[in-house]
């Protein structure tokens, strides 16, 4: 844990020293939130579930861009710099190295989405009905995004190719997220949920709008069940695939840390 936190702090420091990147990740969401709050759309033009749909799309955008895309590029760059090898030599556990490297992306996602959700609620005057499901959606988005990035990074040979290699995950999260906003909440299909983005959207909408056929936490949990199942399954599958395929050095074959050497390491 100490190693992961130390590494995360170093990664944040690295990010902060890239002034343009630091400006973009901090100031742009703030500007967007301020603009949204100070320029709300006229009340008569707001359809009922707009806030929920907007929140769902925002989560999909932040997850795919701020977390997945950024994390894939960071992992590939650190591998090209041989830093992942360096951290492995330190004796730090593989999971701690990945957690430390990816934590800044997770914080950006959580921080950015919290600001935007708040701005959306204020601007549209539509507070979420059950915020618990929003928080759970963000937590599951970070888990899904992190494992997806780890899995994808194994297939990206260079930083330049990282964004292209991440395109399928990017499309599934963003496209699936938007797709699931186009139907009434009760009509989200398994196919939509299967993209990952659709399942996150359903959770956000349940949190913001509340379940359609009943009220209360139990009804919401029942409605969220299929999406929870899909998200946990996808996260688990990508996590296993990531451990099998991850490459720690540029010249390594895809073998992850599940190969004989590390499975039994003590």
């Amino acid at each position, binding site marked *: 844990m100490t190693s992961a936190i130390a590494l995360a702090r170093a990664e944040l420091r690295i990010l902060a020293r890239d002034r343009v990147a630091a400006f973009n990740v901090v100031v742009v969401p703030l500007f967007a939130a301020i603009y949204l709050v100070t320029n709300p759309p006229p009340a008569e033009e707001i359809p009922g579930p707009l806030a929920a749909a907007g929140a769902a799309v925002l989560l999909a955008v932040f997850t795919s861009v701020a977390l997945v895309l950024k994390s894939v590029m960071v992992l590939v760059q650190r591998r090209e710099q041989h830093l992942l*090898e360096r951290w492995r*030599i330190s004796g730090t556990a593989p999971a701690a190295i990945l957690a430390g490297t990816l934590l800044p992306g997770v914080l950006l996602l959580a921080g950015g989405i919290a600001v935007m959700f708040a701005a959306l609620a204020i601007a549209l005057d539509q507070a979420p009905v059950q915020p618990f499901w929003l928080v759970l959606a963000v937590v599951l988005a970070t888990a899904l995004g992190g494992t997806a990035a780890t899995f994808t990074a194994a297939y990206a040979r260079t930083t330049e190719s990282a964004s292209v290699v991440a395109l399928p995950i990017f499309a599934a999260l963003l496209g699936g997220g938007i797709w699931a906003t186009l139907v009434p909440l009760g009509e989200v299909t398994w196919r939509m949920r299967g993209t990952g983005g659709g399942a996150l959207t359903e959770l956000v909408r349940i949190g913001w709008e509340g379940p359609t056929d009943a009220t209360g936490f139990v009804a919401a949990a029942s409605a969220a069940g299929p999406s929870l199942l899909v998200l946990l399954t996808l996260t688990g599958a990508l996590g296993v695939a990531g451990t099998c395929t991850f490459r720690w050095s540029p010249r390594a074959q895809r073998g992850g840390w599940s190969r004989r*050497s590390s499975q039994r390491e*003590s």
Partner: protein
Amino acid sequence: MTTTATGDRDHPRGASGATTTTPDPSLRPAPDPAIEVQQLRCSYGDFEAVRGIELRAAPGELLAVLGTNGAGKTTTLEVLQGRRPADAGHIRVLGLDPARQRRALAARAGVVLQESALPDELTPAEFLLLWQQMAGGGTLTHRPVDEQLARVDLTHRRDVRIGRLSGGERRRLDLATALSADPELLFLDEPTAGLDPESRADTWTLIRQLLHTGTTVVLTTHYLEEADALADRLAIMHEGQIEVAGTLPDVLAARDARIRFTLDNDSTLPNERLVGQATVTRQRDRQHVEVRTPDLADDLRSLLAWSQAGGTDLQRLHASEPTLAEVFHDVRTTTNAPEVTR
């Protein structure tokens, strides 16, 4: 490079040069080897990078692993460090199985990677501090950062971004990182690549100091004079196999010395005057002659006597003991001959 470079090897220690004052070292049990490798094999898919090699280094020794590009040196080091699984073989490093006891080994071994692995955006001081927090899960005792920097002459670059350091300075920072917790074993993968002669000499001095304190060093290098100057024991790899291994004197003693000269076209060769098992080769131009001999002094004396007696002028006469460069060249040429092309 000349054979006199071996005179720099001023670190009497290890199996070939014990420094202790014990009355009779032969009565002591032999120490467990720091490195012990038997029949190591390692592949990348269908390509077998390491093909059944044997290695051994005693505590406090410097083992130099030499070889051409792609010979399997770095792969071997990666296996010894536990960063890559072996396909087969018995491997013990400081008595540990690197594959199963990677973290325990990491706490006792320092590593300088072949490529400088440093984050450009951090300063040397920040990076060393980060390393201290990460190495061994933050449980190891490290030297203070400023002391580490002073050790590799980087104090004046303490707070400069690593991205602005020169290649040599980055390499020295790599070395400082590896030495952070005073490891028992140090893996150096081409540690002086890119260093200027002065920095290289400083690195050699530091390595010698480490050897004096009993640190075991495994070194890979393309600079033969580096191995010549530092190594107690060496192994020359080629195409995944060890072609030559042993102490430097043993390796050199197993090779013939050379005598080269030119003759007039019509001169006869002095085969009959040479003693021992000398091999005499005359090139097609019939002028250039090379004598390979296990007994340089006797054969040179005989050759000069023959020259004087017959009035034959030995032009451009050059005699030399075998050098590591010649051994290395022989390994490449002999293994690149028919066996390789088969």
